[in-house]
């Protein structure tokens, strides 16, 4: 068994009521804990994209993928741990300030290329975008001054390179007719090759 670590999945789903419930219920029922979840629309009408971060070993993630594949609403699954990818997260951090700390706090924020989105007498709210490490570092830097509130969006990810690079590790369930003209999906057999050491 490999060590538990964060695993990123992108799941393209049909944009219909209850799809989000279906996906999260699957994770919940099987006891896979979702660390973060972001959902938004894509370049294809009718298709939403979810980025899910699960903490677990590879076995857990592979099992989750195979369960997801069976859902009729799932169009594609991209397992980012098998690809090079870029990922980002946005966080809003409200930091307490005093007349003495104000300059230092601003300086740190500048080092992180963070923007101030709200200015109060006793607090500044920053917006930071970046990968997980950067956000964690930023929050740690600000912690001594007093963090009043934070809110993170959850990670989002895209595979690096052109779309042509994606198929090696794309899983999918046959799309509905509605999606086929816009979204090129591989024939179902392609998936068998996707987990090389298994099939």
């Amino acid at each position, binding site marked *: 068994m490999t060590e538990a670590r964060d695993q990123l999945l992108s799941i393209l789903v049909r944009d219909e*009521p*209850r799809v989000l*419930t*279906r996906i999260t*219920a*699957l994770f919940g*029922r099987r006891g896979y804990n979702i660390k973060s979840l972001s959902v938004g629309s894509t370049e294809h009408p009718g298709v939403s994209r979810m980025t899910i971060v699960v903490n677990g070993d590879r*076995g857990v993630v*592979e*099992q989750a993928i*195979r*369960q997801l*594949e*069976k*859902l*009729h*609403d799932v169009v594609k699954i991209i397992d980012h741990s098998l690809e090079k990818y870029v990922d980002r997260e946005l966080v809003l951090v409200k930091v307490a300030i005093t007349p003495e700390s104000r300059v230092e706090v601003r300086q740190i924020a500048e080092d992180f290329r963070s923007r101030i989105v709200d200015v109060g007498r006793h607090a500044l709210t920053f917006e930071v975008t970046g990968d997980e490490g950067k956000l964690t570092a930023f929050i740690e830097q600000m912690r001594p001054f007093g963090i009043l509130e934070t809110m993170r969006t959850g990670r989002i990810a895209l595979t690096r390179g052109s779309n042509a690079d994606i198929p090696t590790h794309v899983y999918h369930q046959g799309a*509905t007719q509605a999606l086929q003209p816009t979204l090129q999906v591989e024939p*179902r*057999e392609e*998936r*068998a*090759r996707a987990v090389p050491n*298994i*099939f």
Partner: protein
Amino acid sequence: MTGAKALWATLASHGISTVFGYPGGAIMPVYDALTFYPEVRHVLARHEQGAAHAAEGWAKATGEIGVCMATSGPGATNLVTGLADAMLDSVPLLAITGNVASHLMGTDAFQEADITGITLPITKHNYVVRDVEELPRIVAEAIRIARSGRPGPVLVDIPKDIQLAAFQGEIPAPHARPEAPDPSPESIERARELLRGARKPVIMVGGGSLDASAEITALAHAWGMPVITTLMGLGVFPASDSLWLGMPGMHGSVAANRAISEADVLLGIGLRFDDRVTGRVNSFAPNASIIHVDLDAAEIGKIIRTHVPVRGDARVAARLLAEGAQPTARPDWAAQLSEWQGRTQMPTDWGAGYAVKAVVDRLRPDDILSSDVGQHQMLAAQLARFEKPRRWINSGGLGTMGFGLPAAIGAGMAEPGVRSVVIAGDGGFQMTAQELATLKMYDVRNVKICIINNSFLGMVRQWQELFHEKRYSEVWLGDSNPDFIKLADAYDVPGYRARTAEELPAAIDAWLADPKSALLELVVPHEHGVFPMVPAGAALYEMIETEPVKTAAPTPQRQATEETSEA
């Protein structure tokens, strides 16, 4: 044409001849439209659960999709147990529910229940129809999903206004049944390699191989390998074949469980390594390399570590594996297996086992045997000798009491020329006994009901006996059971009874000879166990082979409680 008519037209165009259901306010337009479609027969069950299990029985016997129907709210929730049952046993099922009008959905309207929400985890997929023009397409797609890949239940919820709305479009032709993926040549070659080197191989087949019986039989003979059939796979391999080792698991045969524990290669086809089959997972087949053939990739490696995964159709995989066969003589293994096979014990004294054996011995190869859930189910599975697949119908995954009678009715209606025998316990029978009315209403003549009356919720009692120091808490039925013969009589179903081994043959003869569907009550001693048994959490090789010698037998509940309160 209304949405309701479009629904029936779509079902008819898919060749659906029978629908089991129960009407109500939110599905009345559908029932009204039914009168225009005489080509589809509707069977009125007496409870929606009965309708769902009857549709399952239909599907399990024929391999074709079963269809059930209910109104919104309470009707829909009554289907839930049947849907969960179909999900776990991979039964292709289409459930149609009415719902309140679209504009009322979400307002807690009269008889509204969020049935798609409720059935989300126990259906392969479900739909709410929001536009009448979509209705036939959705129903066609639901049928396709239910039947394709690993089969399962699909629910289509239709708001009342959609049933009434005018439909302009065309009724879709049925989807072609999608082809299952072929296993990859590499995986087949790796599997063959393992089989070639095997000294103690065993094949284990489950419900996913029901349609691969011929190929699996040929495969086993080609390699000279013994075959174990799980509860769901009984009949895939003929019981009369000397290579058959019986059923594995909690109440499996000595031969099957020992063979698994000793095997060096285990080839599993169309099964999911249920915990009732594996016993303690880390001690399952401890010496074996595992080859797992399954259509559903999610099953491979889910519970048991697989050395050679083969994803694909059981039929194709078995055929390919047989092609590379190198028959090997394994005299030591054969001798060991036949010693274990010899350890099978047949019930010799009057009791549940004796009664079940007498009934199943009378089955003809074409007869369908259904069972309810409990000791009688395990006894039937141990003692019946199935020569063909799809002749054994039971609730394996969910273990649903009340399943037996309606499933036998569904199977009997699907194959009116075949005897549909059901064995039930006195407990489970009473969960859906009202379906006797269905036999009467449709004058079904081929359903033969056998109740093993041990006055107890026998299986629970057995666990209490073994693991709870005989504290028989809430399992005594004896004082409150109805007179089953009178109950049957109330529905015009002829009844027969035997209380002793001596009375048994004549009672069975009369029961089977009755031209109508009939009920046979076999009154057996109260405390009879099912053995072999692997205690929950134990390894298969830790099975208790024979029934432990009984000490004093406290029977009704009160007596048992008094005894233990002294201790």
